[in-house]
């Protein structure tokens, strides 16, 4: 890296997948979902992200397939544009500039040149449904300002609007009203639930709506868990509705199947309910989907459903209610209490995710690796339930041990605490529960840390708690003649004048343990557990504590509540320096002496990188985020970078990730986010998207045969030949527009030729013949050449001609040989 771009804050993955309904492609092969400013294209079969469509400059709020061309996708965004994409190649085709914030997008088959969007009018909570006429123009960017008003006073969420039965009407719900607008009559009917008017705390407000694809029937979901099916709503007086009730909490989303025979509903219970024939008794369930169902969508082909969940996950479900694929993003729990950690074995980012689980998230591939179930109890998702929460976790002994703390507090006096210690099992490549400790402390555990030394014969864990004690747990040999077993037992209990223990930290060599008791830092000898010395700066409670590393291991750093950062020298037992800095996050780099501190001010968060030996920071970046930064972590790089400038040297061996209060995961990088993302093979996608025509089957078979052939022959060929020789010929044929192709008679012979070649070379005994053939061909090469060039000139397309010329040079020779050969195989075909 020669010249260095400035370091910027970059959002790195982990964006929301469940913001809007996912959309299936026409053939159900791909699924699209909005993800922040991007649209992600996933394969439904492999769960892989095949494309990321970027172009919007603000949150994408809606996506719909183009009904006229199912290989195109419309999207709208808060930046006021509607964009048309070719999702196969990931190309932006067109941009329509509307000019106001767009909150949802609807497209009808009937209205070819116009789309429907929801826009915000004056008041913050009042939305309108308008139709936008998309002007026909060849230019890339088109202004689309022709708006016509359809419905007023609607809900922002696209779940509350549905177009029904051949787009004759549109239904919208808000609060206690269902409004239906008929396009033909251009009238609006409004229905109210009778009971809702007089009761003050009625829970039957509308939450979502769906329209039957074939009949005049509207399904609406309600806050109290009921689903109402409205019929005969053409008449303001004679309308009827029936009720379906299974959900005990709010119905989050509804969807009709393509034929309209079944209705899908989901909610907080995390159970997908399928109502057959709109009957109360005919229902099927898919339970335990893990988290609240936010959205349900149905593929146009009707073979797949998908549900988006509040834990940032999309589940693709087969028609017979079997989950077939899970697309899982970074789970963003309500609060990240465990902080960010790095698993030393997989180098994955670890934090609490799904309720009761610890998630291992790969930063490189922006993908969740796996979930470790810590609490191991049935998760009941209900409003107002106090759940067991995973509050602390720590890795120790190079990833061989994992300690987790879970708690549940119902009342002030009733605290349930449990500490679990997990051992890494090499055979199963996962963590196995080793020891479970009930009530390790009498009050909340504030910190836990392992002693990570090289010679860890006795793995040691320290927990600090609000009950004024810190406890040292050691691994003991619990084996007898019947079994070999290890377990953790309490070795030492320490306290200091009954102050609450707030932090604990081992020095790098493991010889010293620092425990902070409110304002006081105590240093303990880890061999004998004797109190060595205490430090106190009288500047408020210690919030962060860490030892210096490597050459700076004689320093101890502490950040206090009142915004003072202190550095003590352990040799002289004196304060080395202190600085006024309101530190929120303090993280030591495992590969260097550097320590990153993030301070919080009223304007935003600032980053300081410094060495404990000198109070002057190495690097300062102001205003890294407007919100409060909650956690940070250094991730060692696989390949060290080589920034030469002094300011960026701290990024050479590690990368710094941090998590803000709104749970966006950010990092510092010099590259643009596009570069960071793993490139996806576009060629692969093009190959994959070939339509399955009879022609394809011939080619497919042909290619399979080739594969077999090359498996049989030597391995060198296997690597080189199949792609370079034959595939270009076929793909050239298929990818060239029809009007520029040479005449069919010319191509036909070429194609058959290429097909035959493989059959010829397949048989092993003919290989020597081939060689001979080559030689004899070379002798009469010249006249062959001439013949061929003449033909090419006939086609009037030199560009293509050159290609054909190059590709079929040898094949033409073959062809000539085949003219002499018996053609009886044609009959066999």
């Amino acid at each position: 890296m020669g010249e260095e771009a400035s370091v910027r804050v970059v959002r790195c993955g982990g964006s929301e997948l469940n913001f809007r309904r996912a959309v299936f492609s026409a053939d159900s092969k791909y699924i699209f979902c909005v993800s922040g400013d991007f649209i992600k294209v996933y394969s439904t079969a492999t769960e892989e992200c095949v494309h990321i469509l970027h172009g919007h400059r603000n949150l994408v709020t809606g996506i719909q397939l183009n009904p006229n061309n199912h290989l195109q996708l419309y999207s709208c965004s808060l930046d006021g544009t509607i964009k048309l994409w070719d999702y196969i190649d990931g190309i932006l085709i067109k941009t329509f500039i509307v000019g106001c914030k767009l909150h949802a997008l609807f497209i009808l088959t009937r209205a070819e040149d116009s789309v429907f969007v929801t826009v915000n009018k004056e008041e913050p909570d009042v939305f309108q449904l308008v139709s936008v006429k998309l002007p026909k123009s060849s230019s890339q960017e088109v202004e689309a300002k022709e708006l016509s008003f359809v419905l007023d006073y609607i809900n922002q969420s696209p779940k509350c609007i549905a177009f029904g039965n051949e787009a004759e009407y549109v239904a919208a719900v808000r609060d206690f009203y269902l409004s239906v607008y008929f396009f033909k009559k251009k009238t609006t009917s409004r229905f109210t639930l009778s009971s809702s008017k007089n009761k003050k705390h009625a829970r039957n407000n509308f939450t979502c709506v769906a329209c039957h694809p074939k009949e005049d029937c509207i399904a609406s979901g309600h806050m109290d868990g009921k689903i109402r099916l409205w019929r005969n709503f053409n008449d303001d007086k004679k309308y009827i509705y029936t009720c379906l009730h299974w959900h005990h909490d709010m119905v989050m989303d509804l969807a009709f199947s393509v034929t309209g025979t079944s209705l899908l509903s989901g909610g907080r219970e995390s159970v997908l309910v399928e109502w057959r024939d709109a009957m109360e008794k005919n229902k099927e369930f898919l339970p335990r989907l893990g988290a609240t169902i936010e959205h349900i969508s149905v593929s146009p082909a009707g073979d797949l459903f998908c549900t988006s969940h509040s834990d940032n996950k999309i589940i693709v479900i087969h028609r017979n209610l079997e989950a077939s694929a899970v697309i899982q993003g970074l789970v963003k729990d309500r609060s990240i209490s465990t902080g960010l950690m790095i698993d030393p074995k997989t180098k994955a980012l670890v934090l609490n995710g799904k309720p009761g689980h610890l998630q291992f998230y790969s930063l490189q591939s922006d993908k969740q690796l796996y979930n470790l179930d810590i609490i191991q109890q049935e998760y009941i998702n209900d409003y107002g339930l106090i759940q067991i929460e995973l509050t602390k976790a720590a890795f120790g002994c190079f990833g061989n041990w994992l300690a987790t703390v879970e708690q549940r507090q119902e009342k002030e006096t009733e605290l349930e605490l449990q500490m679990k210690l997990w051992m890494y099992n090499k055979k199963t490549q996962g963590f196995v529960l080793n020891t479970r400790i009930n009530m390790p402390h009498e009050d909340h555990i504030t910190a836990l840390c392992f002693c990570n030394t090289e010679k860890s014969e006795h793995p040691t864990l320290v927990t600090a708690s609000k009950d004024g004690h810190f406890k040292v747990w050691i691994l003991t040999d619990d084996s007898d003649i019947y079994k070999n077993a290890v377990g953790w037992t309490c070795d030492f209990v320490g306290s200091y004048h009954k102050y609450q223990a707030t932090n604990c930290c081992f020095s790098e060599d493991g010889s010293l343990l620092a425990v902070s008791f409110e304002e006081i830092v105590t240093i303990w000898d880890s061999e004998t557990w004797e109190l060595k010395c205490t430090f106190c700066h009288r500047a408020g409670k210690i919030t962060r504590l860490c030892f210096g590393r490597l050459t700076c291991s004689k320093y101890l750093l502490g950040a206090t509540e009142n915004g003072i950062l202190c550095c003590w020298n352990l040799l002289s037992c004196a304060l080395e320096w202190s600085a006024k800095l309101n530190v929120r996050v303090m993280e030591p780099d495992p590969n260097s002496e550097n320590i990153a501190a993030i301070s919080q001010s009223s304007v935003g968060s600032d980053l300081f990188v410094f060495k404990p030996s000198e109070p002057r920071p190495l690097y300062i970046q102001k205003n890294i985020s407007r919100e409060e930064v909650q956690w940070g972590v250094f991730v060692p790089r696989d390949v060290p970078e080589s920034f030469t400038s002094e300011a960026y040297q701290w990024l050479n061996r590690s990368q710094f990730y941090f998590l803000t209060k709104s749970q966006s995961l950010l990092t510092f990088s010099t590259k643009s986010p596009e570069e960071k993302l793993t490139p996806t093979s576009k060629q692969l996608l093009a190959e994959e998207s070939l339509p399955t025509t009879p022609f394809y089957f011939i080619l497919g078979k042909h290619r399979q045969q080739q594969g077999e052939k090359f498996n049989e022959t030597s391995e060198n060929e296997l690597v080189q030949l199949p792609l370079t020789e034959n595939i270009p010929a076929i793909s050239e044929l298929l990818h060239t527009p029809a009007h520029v192709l040479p005449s069919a008679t010319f191509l036909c012979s070429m194609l058959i030729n290429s097909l035959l070649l493989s059959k010829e070379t397949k048989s092993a005994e003919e290989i020597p013949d081939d060689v001979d053939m080559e030689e004899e061909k070379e002798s009469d090469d010249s006249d062959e050449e001439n013949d061929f060039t003449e033909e090419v000139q006939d086609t009037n397309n030199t560009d293509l001609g050159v290609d054909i010329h190059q590709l079929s040079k040898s094949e033409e020779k073959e062809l000539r040989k085949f003219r002499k050969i018996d053609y009886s195989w044609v009959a066999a075909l």
Partner: protein
Amino acid sequence: MAGYKPAAIQTYPVLGEKITQDTLYWNNYKPPYNYAVTASSRIHIYGRYSQEPIKTFSRFKDTAYCATFRQDGRLIVAGSEDGGVQLFDISGRAPLRQFEGHTKAVHTVDFTADKYHVVSGADDYTVKLWDIPNSKEILTFKEHSDYVRCGCASKLNPDLFITGSYDHTVKMFDARTNKSVLSVEHGQPVESVLLFPSGGLLVSSGGRYVKVWDMLKGGQLLVSLRNHHKTVTCLCLSSSGQRLLSGSLDRKVKVYSTTSYKVVHSFDYAASILSLALAHEDETIIVGMTNGILSVKHRKSEAKKDSLPKRRRPAYRTFIKGKNYMKQRDDILINRPAKKHLELYDRDLKNFRISKALDRVLEPTCTLKTPEITVSIIKELNRRGVLANALAGRDEKEISRVLNFLIRNLSQPRFAPVLINAAEIIIDIYLPVIGQSPVVDKKFLLLQGLVEKEIDYQRELLETLGMMDMLFATMKRKESNSVLEHTSDGFLENKKIES
């Protein structure tokens, strides 16, 4: 998606002795049948099952020692205080042979492996080998320098035998060489010696030590065990050779594993133990004690399976059907996930039948045997926020069942937090109908009394703790592990409302 996760049942460490397969084996002895042996100059032979002597030899002038059966069980030999060694036929009454030669008390006798010789050791420091057919002395060894009190002949080699003496040595003699071939220094007066069936290992006991020697390595000390705190007087091997037993004056018999030499079990007796023997197949353990009592314990036979007419279950082959089917070439193997077994209460919980689940764990079989399951289910219901629903709507009989459980377990510290919460809910629910059933009212009063007693007790404990703290403070030492459970104040208030 992920299957149903069963409710977590809290397990508690079993206090006291650890239950292992060894404790089960050795605990399987029936209660001891103690009875006295009166005559010191007699040998009583007891039947296997009757507790009466079936035969008595009483031709001794003085105290008899170390009666030993020959391997085939037809002859018995014993030493005597007056220095004589007498050999009896098991069916006869008069001594078959009398070996005269020792000048002092003979404390140890044994048959050699060829059955035709007898080895004896005496307090005159000599060890003698006798020939049974001729009733003559063959050899005399005078190598010990103190009383010879124990000995043992090899079971493999007719010429080898060992003796232990109060001169702290154990010597191995070979009848072919006229002198000892091996000598090991035990360090204390040797009270008992034992050879392993293979002859390779020698066990000696003396003082508080049991020592194991490797004979094949020339008498190298293999392991020294110090598990008794008084002199170890006797040793014995179990029939399988897997366990070694030692009896001691500290009134304990310890069982060791012979692979790791760790204590796997321990018997307690009423008095100091002088002798110890195990019957064939470990069926009986017999211990002689200083108070003159002989303790005999029979082991319950394991094979006593109840042959009740069982419900006919599907045959074994139904379960393994298709398990060993080999995949053919074109077959597609579809693995069906193993069906997870769920407990009955878990099945109810899975289907949200909460009252049913609670009823199930309140059955007497569950509450008495495994109260922790009941408590865990109550805790789980509380976690799901449905405990009040599950407890409500019960009739007199059902509520008294719940109250019975509370009364029995409320004061247990490990169950207290969960059960106090449940008790509060019950009081809240059933407060309006109090006074309708005298049975339930009585139970409530009982519960109240229990809680008051517990509070008093806790207060007393706190006072004691305060006193101890003061004492420790004066001694400049800190107490680290004081466990104290707190009864919640909220509960106290509720009780008052209820009463």
